[in-house]
């Protein structure tokens, strides 16, 4: 029975999430065995060295990776429905370009730390509001108009990003490029992001059936009783909030928001009651795994997470696409 299969899939993804989180906490320059981890956790909570490695160094980064992956996957799942376009991802409407412009501007004028996060937030918020304002036409906002406005704005902001990179002094460039590719170095405990992800998932689940209806088209949704303009703005603001939160936390990590909803859809079908939590769990797991590989494969040198994410995700996606569905 389909319901059982989907529930089973969610349980499996939950177990995968726990395993990848554990793997990320134990794996690194210093290897920690599982029994050592349990011992630290239960018997010797004040072992200073391992305690520091696990709880101060790895836990914030591991959780940040998971939150970022979950937020981007959730935003991607919503955006693909909102734009009714399988190619949509959280960055397609220029939110990440806005965040990048804000963050890079802060870097180039010599501001660091919390200013970069704040700049990213401000940049993404500006992009969100601009798209929302410019895509409105005669009190309605079609998916095509929203998409075209977002893409145009993203292109304009990309030009601005290029300009900032061109005029930036060499010592700043490496940090800027790493931020653009996605960077979790120096991550802090993502408490705000966890609240956004948890609360956001719950709110999104309230829209699950409406999302299912909206996949049939705007006209169909309206004749079934949906207030389409209000729904579009709600979903747009939700996915934008998730994207802006993720980008502010970890920079522009590509691909996870595009591929993960497709992966879950291929395994569990389109029902958003399963698709949304499934995307959060798989997105979080994949990005946690990608980050673990990124920081350990060529240690002490760190690799861009986005690159590892794509290397991990593409083969999985292609195999699933090849063998699971004949309806794509």
């Amino acid at each position, binding site marked *: 029975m*389909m319901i059982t299969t989907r529930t089973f899939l969610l349980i499996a993804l939950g177990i995968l999430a726990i395993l990848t989180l554990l793997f990320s906490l134990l794996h690194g320059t210093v290897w920690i065995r599982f029994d050592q981890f349990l011992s630290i956790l239960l018997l010797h909570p004040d072992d200073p060295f391992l305690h520091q490695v696990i709880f101060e160094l790895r836990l914030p980064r591991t959780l940040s990776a998971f939150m970022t992956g979950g937020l981007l996957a959730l935003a991607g799942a919503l955006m693909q429905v909102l734009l009714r376009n399988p190619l949509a991802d959280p960055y397609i409407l220029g939110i990440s370009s806005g965040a990048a412009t804000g963050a890079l501007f802060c870097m180039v004028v010599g501001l660091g730390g919390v200013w970069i996060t704040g700049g990213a937030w401000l940049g993404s918020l500006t992009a969100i509001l601009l798209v929302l304002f410019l895509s409105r036409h005669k009190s309605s906002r079609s998916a095509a108009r929203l998409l075209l406005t977002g893409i145009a704005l993203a292109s304009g902001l990309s030009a601005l990003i290029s300009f900032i990179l061109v005029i930036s002094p060499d010592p700043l460039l490496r940090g800027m490029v790493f931020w653009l590719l996605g960077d979790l170095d120096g991550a802090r405990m993502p408490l705000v992001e966890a609240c956004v992800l948890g609360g956001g998932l719950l709110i999104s*689940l*309230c829209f*699950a*059936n*409406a999302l*299912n*209806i909206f*996949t*049939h088209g705007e*006209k*169909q949704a*309206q*004749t*079934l*009783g*949906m*207030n*389409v303009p209000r729904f579009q703005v709600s979903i747009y603001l939700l996915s934008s909030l998730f994207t802006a939160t993720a980008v502010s936390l970890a920079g522009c990590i590509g691909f996870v928001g595009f591929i993960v909803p497709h992966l879950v*859809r291929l395994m569990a*079908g*389109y*029902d958003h009651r399963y698709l949304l939590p499934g995307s959060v769990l798989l997105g979080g797991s994949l990005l946690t795994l990608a980050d673990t590989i990124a920081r350990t494969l060529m240690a002490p040198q760190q690799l861009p997470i986005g690159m590892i994410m794509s290397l991990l995700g593409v083969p999985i996606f292609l195999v699933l696409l090849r063998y699971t*569905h*004949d*309806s794509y």
Partner: protein
Amino acid sequence: MTHTDLLNVNQLTVQIGTKTLCRTLDLTIRPGEIWGVLGANGSGKTTLLHTLIGLHQPLSGTILLNNKLVTSLQPSHIATQMGIVFQENPTHFLQTVFEFCLTGRYPHMGLFGMPNSTDKEITHQALNMMGLADQHKQKMHTLSGGEKRRLALAAVLTQNPKIYLLDEPTNHLDLRYQHQVLTHFKKLAHENQASVIMSLHQIELVRQYCDHVLLLFENGNIKQGSTHNLLTETHLAKLYPGTFA
């Protein structure tokens, strides 16, 4: 308008671009009536149905649903009163037949739109009526064109509105299902006092199943009346130039 009128259209003028599709239409739909909308391709049958349900803004005129302006009603309220089957078949391939059909229950579901056992039971009944009970677990992309058409009709049956707007409901259907489907809607009209407004191209089906017809001529002129009086060769010749000469 009397208290029994379901839908009352006053002086409605509908345009697409600069083309006037219907001019100053006055129309009253009462419970239990079946209306056939006839006209050549491009005469505005689909646009008129879309206008009645609020998907297209008319140039002028008013549409009253149960004595209330359609434009003043929430989409959720309109959806409990009017349901539409679009001309195109549904194309959401990743859903099962049952899942798609269940979407018709959306206007009747609670705050978060979660289906209960009654919704599921009604959906099973609708699939059964449209001859799709055995395929309820199938994915939509495995259905034929005719089966998808019956699925769209089953979905509007689960919606259970008072007025059914059916845009070419017999598209893709074989002869047996054309009659089976229209017989079912006729039964709904007579037994449940539902109203049906459907655009059709088959004159014989209109004669057989519709009590009233609305003829849309190419210049935006309209004629309406009983099927018996209006479906004459003269009118049909005007409606489809060169065909009934």
